[in-house]
């Protein structure tokens, strides 16, 4: 009787020690779910979700404070991926909150007065310039977040849609054309 009790206590102490040790040794820094959510988000850092960047939005989703349909640049596919990741139902975009065509910002260099306000607003440092010097966008780094539009005092920044060209063209999903075989 006593020996059985001792064996059981011994086992539980041992396992407790192992668990306690591994909790310290293999401690995961930060919330891995946040990183997974952040990996799905498009990293435009546009703030259209109402959070100051993709990481804060990911943190809010992980805490259950934010909906998964608040990221227009991610598109519907982004929502689907989030839904799959979090094991929740797909939720469509709200009214008028859908994704827009991809675009890059363009500075009309004739109008630019060199105030540096857009440079301070750009979340990915994609604007080059200095005080009283003309600014310009590094198009390849621009995420199209539109955050530079509002601060510009002379409204010289416009969003130029990225059209289809040979470099970004892709094959479309094959569709079988429907042919009307008999007149109505």
């Amino acid at each position, binding site marked *: 009787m006593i020996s059985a009790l001792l064996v059981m206590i011994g086992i539980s102490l041992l396992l407790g020690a192992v668990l306690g040790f591994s909790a310290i040794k293999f401690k995961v820094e930060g919330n891995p779910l946040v990183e997974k959510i*952040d990996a799905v*988000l*498009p*990293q*435009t*850092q546009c703030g259209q979700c109402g959070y100051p*960047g*993709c990481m804060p939005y990911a943190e809010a989703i992980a805490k259950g404070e934010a909906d998964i349909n608040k990221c227009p640049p991610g598109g519907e596919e982004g929502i689907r991926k989030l839904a799959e990741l979090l094991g929740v139902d797909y939720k469509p975009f709200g009214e008028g909150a859908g994704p827009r065509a991809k675009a890059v910002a363009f500075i009309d260099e004739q109008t630019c007065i060199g105030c540096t306000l857009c440079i301070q607003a750009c*979340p*990915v*440092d*994609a604007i080059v310039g200095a005080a009283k010097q003309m600014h310009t966008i590094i198009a390849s*780094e621009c*995420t199209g977040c539109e955050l530079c539009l509002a601060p510009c005092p002379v409204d010289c920044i416009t969003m130029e849609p990225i059209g*289809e*060209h*040979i470099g*970004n*063209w*892709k*094959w*479309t*999903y*094959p569709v*079988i054309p429907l042919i009307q075989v008999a007149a109505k």
Partner: protein
Amino acid sequence: MRTLYKFHGGVHPPTHKEESTRTPIAQAAIPSRLVIPLHQHVGNRAVPDVQVGDHVLKGQIIGRPEGRLSSAVHASTSGTVSAIDMQLVAHHSGLPDLCITITPDGKDEWIAHKGVDYKQTPHTDLRHILRHAGVVGLGGAVFPSDMKSYSNKHKIKTLVLNGAECEPYITCDDLLMRERASDILRGAEVLRTLLYAEEVLIGIEDNKPEAIASMRQAVLDGNHENMEVIAVPTLYPGGGAKQLIRVLTGIEVAAGVRSTEMGTQCFNVATAYCVWRAITYGEPLLSRIVTVTGNVDHPQNYEVLLGTPVDELVKQSGNRADTNRHIMGGPMMGVDLPSGAVGVTKATNCIIEGSDALFPPPPPALPCIRCTRCAEVCPAELQPQELYWFAKAKDFGKTQEYSLFDCIECGACAYVCPSQIPLVQYYRFAKSEIWQREQEAQAAEVARERHEFRAERIEREKREKAERLAQKEREATAAREAFTLAQALAAKQAAELSAKQAADPAFEPDNTQQMRIDAAIVRAKAQVAAEHPNNTEMLTPQQKAEIAEIEARRAHIREMASNAGADDEPPKSNKDK
């Protein structure tokens, strides 16, 4: 007799090669305009090196190579640059790309050019010549040849020359081998030298007996050693590089592995010919052999200047009214041209004029019945029916698990499909979708890094500013503390002194120091007085009185001057600037 190996699968579509092989290669006429795309090769687009209105000579570089993987583009004949703009090009998308349009002057005037002896020239120079001569793989892949003609890491044993030409209708390599065999072999020698390859194997499908005979004769005539012309069985797609290497050497080039890693390198016969012309004669790649066939009166092979509009070329073979499409390349892998105005490029081996009679529109696709005939013919040993299934469901992860990117898009699966499913289209869709996602993921990663860096920078700047402020604050506090400390010390000393005096009225403060200072002041005063003698001892009292008066006046003026100087600053001299 050499042992040949087999690759998996393959199909036997009707070859349709006889039509265009009845007559020798003809020289196509200089067209009314040349539309020369700047992106005719794998890699970076060439950069325009001319301006609109410039007169260019035949062989002049009009697009210089940009970056490591790129190739030059030349004016195919002499004339005037009439436009540098977006024009339709031979591409699946049917979208325009940057082209240089030249209006020929009809003189066909060459730029000064001369060749080199490849045996006397360093290999880097030879590769430089190839790059600037615009030599790219003419089998259809248009990979810059200079990038393929070296191998630092791996010993190349076998150089494979590809004359298989497995796709139906195309006969340009066949005619080239019949007519220009010796130059092809000389080009092969140049490539062999560059690669330090031991043997050269030339694979030609056995439906081209004339070409095989001509090449064998040329090997004998040219005394080429370790070079063998091998007839390989006619089986589509036996002209694929991996398939031909497999058939000739038995080496299976695995997925994601380059053939050089397996000790082989493969060039098209037409590429070898162009290498020879570029090295020995200094002639850049300005023209190529193009088969014009299909729905035309006289199917024929032409030597065509690059940039010749397709409809002007086809006209020379007699086009027919019911032609409704132009296919560049073969019927299995070719590109439907968006217009007849598209210029011939380095990749254009064949133009097939299509009509409804020749290529009836495909019947509607039926459901897959999973007969796996596609798997039987797949030369890459894939499971096309599974790939189709996952691509259709847009399950791109699964398509990659089933090695989608090993698909060479040969179209054998779609050719045998009893349900007429356009399988290759599904694979291409899946591939480009995966590529796009990868690019987007990369862009997102870059954006994330830039954003994090920016946040860190802002944080750092804030920290540094705070540190600077704190430093200043510390300095000010230190100064204040030092001042208070000194005051306190002085007060303490005074207090101690007064305390001692109070305790002992007879106490003389320990003023040896003070006395020393006083003595020093007295000494200094005496010294000053000694240094400025008044020299008045010898004067009369009247004179002394006059001097005293003058001294008093001087003192008064000095006093006035020092008062005025304190009130307003003296005017600045212009010289100070």
